[in-house]
């Protein structure tokens, strides 16, 4: 089952770690905020969980896609 990465926008302060940990799924816009432009498939699930856990603002969640 595919999962989706969702951003808690009021919590996100553009630290950008997610794009470093998971460039396959997350890029940054011109202000440094994440653009999530694809779902998280099985082989990226571990990295996605790391990104969720390591976000300094705890602003990411994995939800059912």
């Amino acid at each position, binding site marked *: 089952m595919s999962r989706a990465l969702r*951003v*808690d*926008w*009021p*919590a*996100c*302060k*553009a630290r950008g770690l997610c794009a470093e940990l998971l460039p396959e799924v997350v890029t940054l*816009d*011109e*202000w*440094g*905020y994440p*653009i999530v432009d694809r779902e998280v498939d099985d082989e990226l699930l571990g990295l996605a969980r790391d990104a969720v856990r390591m976000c300094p603002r705890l602003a990411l*969640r994995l*939800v059912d896609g």
Partner: protein
Amino acid sequence: MSTSPVAVCEDPEVLAGPWLLAGAVDGPGLGAHLARYGETPDTDLDDLLAAVDATGLRGRGGAAFPFATKLRAAAGGSGRPVVVVNLSEGEPASSKDSALARTSPHLVLDGAVATARALGARQVHVVLPGDRPLTTAAVDAAAAERRDRRVRLVRHVAAPRFVAGQSRAVLELMAGRPNLPVTAWTPEAVAGHRSRPTLLSNAETWGHVGRLLHSGPPRGLGTDDEPGTTLLTVRGPDTVTVREVEYGAPMRSVLPAEGESAVLLGGFHGTWATVQDARELRVSVTGLREAGYALGAGLVMAVTECPVRWTQRVVAYLAAQSAGRCGPCLNGLPALATAVSALDDGEGTRRVSDLATLVEGRGACAHPDGTVRLVRSLFASYADEVDRHGAGHCAWARPHVVRRLRSVAS
């Protein structure tokens, strides 16, 4: 800070209507309400669900979400449900919820209180508009006339701000936090106020529930697909009218009689239509959606200014109304406002389109999406006028139009 291109109007002309506004001529008191409708019949949840299913009632706050779906979710959730009447009406151009509350407040409260009883809820939270003192006074007066031992009315006053009426912002207000949107991880009907199932609808929606409980379904009104009526705020350059129309009614019967005007459907988060196209439309949530327009919270405005200029002013206002919490909205809406302004210099069409794509879907509430909807509709309905501005001209600045407006004004 950019101000709204139109001021809040709390005292519009209110035309009596066939259904919700039938009692608008009676006065707002409980005595007049009881003389017309009597006591609210007790209803259980199954009967209420059957009734709202049969009429296909949709929310009237702008999103047109099916009321029965919310009601079912709230009834099936864990914990004692909470009912919320959202009267915040954050869209400055809209006057229909406040008009309903000022003319028939008890119909609105009947719908919410009867639903609360059917759900076993003990509290109905009433969220009043901070920038509409007459409405607040009218609802307070109506609440003071009522006695209900099982259901308590709890009063809140929303901040005078465009996004304050968004459902999650209302829940924040109820929780004693700043009246601003936050991320919704679950629908509020499942887990809202204090994690309880929370049935939040706007005043007009509750008015329809109230009338349905008193009178049964609205027979002979509306279409098979969309039974019943809807309230509209109809704004001309110098007039504000709240009226009730049947679904399926021709838009031409609603439009203010302004020859050379652009038509804004659905308000600041809505869509532009040329007056020629608008005359061919019908008042319908689904019909307008299929045609690429939005009825939103029921606004129909005839704008005699240039739609490009007007969009520039509205987007600047909406950018200033951002709660400033979500990065894409905080940064993207001012950038979008700048790009829309730069259309006058022959720049920015590409930038506008890029920013619209960048902002859309990236926020805790629908504010960025609504702003993008308005900007995109300018390009869909007035692409020629956008091009003309890029070349340094404006068809709306023609002298005869200016003269005609002066003669209307004098």
